[in-house]
């Protein structure tokens, strides 16, 4: 646990950096962009905006913490990530919701988070098109545009609004997703796929959704990566949801949460229990 003043400062820096990413988003909004495909998957790509926003985040962090490393989704070498997370490092997903962005939809954000001792300490997610700044710091709560937010507190799966996302072009993957949809959907009140992960995680933190879980989470890491998850967004989501009074559990395995893997984000621990009872091992 860090000192309160330090956490407050890091939260402000995360906000400032996320806003700087948002300035880059605005500059390119509505413009035609070339795509860099990730792992040969045509639905997964980055653009010049991702790279430029990542640089904007780095500049802000470097101004306040010149000796600290900023690890971005668009980086290529993640070999020492566990050590970095222990020692203290920043993560950024400079443009979460690239697909929304290139389609001119408003649901995209810039995410910045500081991790130390393997745990998220302070973070921000900024949605430029909506003017929504979510932030959180360990023990200090979650806010939306400065006002405290709370999860819905929903306790019953049958009254819950579930949110998830899907990306991919393989038929087998779509079949797996569809099978889980059939299993789950009779047990929930609403099933939503609003787009970017940050829309869902911030949505759970703000009480807009009750649950957020991937139904087709990777089991194996992608090529040249030592982990299956997306720590540049996951670390922020864990903090935002927990600090808003919500519950987080690793989708697979032990521990309070898994920064390098997939998690279940929920308005209450009871929802996670009921979700697992319906879905079994995933």
């Amino acid at each position, binding site marked *: 646990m860090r000192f309160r003043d330090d956490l407050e400062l890091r939260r402000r820096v995360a906000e400032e950096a996320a806003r700087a990413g948002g300035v880059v988003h605005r500059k390119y909004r509505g413009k035609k962009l070339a795509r860099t495909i990730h792992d040969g998957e045509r639905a997964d790509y980055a653009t010049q905006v991702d790279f430029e926003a990542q640089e904007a985040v780095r500049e802000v962090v470097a101004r306040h913490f010149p000796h600290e490393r900023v690890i971005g989704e668009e980086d290529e070498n993640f070999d020492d990530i566990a050590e970095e997370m222990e020692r203290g490092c920043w993560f950024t997903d400079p443009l979460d919701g690239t697909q929304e962005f290139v389609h001119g939809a408003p649901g995209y954000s810039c995410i910045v988070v500081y991790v130390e001792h393997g745990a998220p300490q302070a973070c921000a997610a900024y949605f430029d098109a909506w003017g929504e700044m979510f932030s959180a710091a360990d023990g200090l709560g979650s806010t939306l545009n400065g006002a405290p937010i709370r999860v819905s507190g929903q306790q019953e799966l049958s009254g819950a609004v579930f949110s998830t996302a*899907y990306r991919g072009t393989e038929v087998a*993957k779509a079949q797996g*997703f*569809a099978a889980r*949809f*059939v299993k789950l959907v009779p047990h929930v009140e609403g099933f939503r796929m*609003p787009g970017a992960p940050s829309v869902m995680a911030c949505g759970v933190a703000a009480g807009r959704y009750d649950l957020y879980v991937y139904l087709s989470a990777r089991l194996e890491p992608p090529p040249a990566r030592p982990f299956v998850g997306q720590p540049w967004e996951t670390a922020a989501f864990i903090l935002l949801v927990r600090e808003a009074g919500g519950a987080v559990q690793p989708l697979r395995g032990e521990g309070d949460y898994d920064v390098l893997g997939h998690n279940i984000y929920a308005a209450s621990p009871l929802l996670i229990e009921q979700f697992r009872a319906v879905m079994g091992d995933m």
Partner: protein
Amino acid sequence: MDDALNSKRRAVAEEAARAAGAVHMRYYGTGIDRVTKAWRRDFVTKADLEAQAAVKDVIAAHFPHDLVIGEEDEDAFNRIAASIETGCWVTDPLDGTAEFLHTGAFFSSVVSYVERNFPLAAAVHAPFTDELYSAARGLGATLNGAPIRTSGADALEDAMFVASYTAPTPERAAWFARWMERVMPAVGGWRMFGSSALCAMTVAAGRADIYSPAPEPMTAQPLLGQPQKPQPWETPAYVLIVEEAGGAVANIHGNAPELLGFNIYSASRALLDEYLALL
């Protein structure tokens, strides 16, 4: 076609949709009661009822002799079916009631005027994001006053596909899943929002490329059947606004849009045809 009259109808539709949106926001997040309708996930609140009254008040102030039929009226479907030839206003005073009750962002009011089976003016207001979509026949579509156009996308493999789902039974879920398995691998992105109005308006605004309803079990052509129950209090607005934004709208057989049935809303005719061919 009377452009001046349709322009006035559009302005009245906008005012009425805004009045309904003001009712939504008065009750937003206040934890109001729900009354279940036909099945567990279909319910009405006093926000629906008061928003409908607000829509009717606005229209009555400008067109006191016009008929207004809302989703919450008795026998709304049959009354609309009997009046879309002679002329009537139709409204879904709160589309996305679940989204509204769960303090989500995507709920809206929908108002349109229909005559000779043809939508002539319409507005959709999403009060949480303060977005007002409207159109008048032949006069274009706007979002908060600025003209909007569909994306023009014509390739399914890169298209952002929007689906909506309100199936109450496991059987329906299974049919929906079959459709998902077929479509998901063929498109660029798949989204499901909590309000059908938002699904249609994202296509009109060029933010998504195609919106199609889910298929229905009881049909000879399983993947092209009539899905769920028709929503004629909202459909005319979607048809008009997407068409006026340059998009293509057709029924599930690729023919002219049906105000009393289901339609596919697309950024272009080529995209719509490619999707129908996939099914």
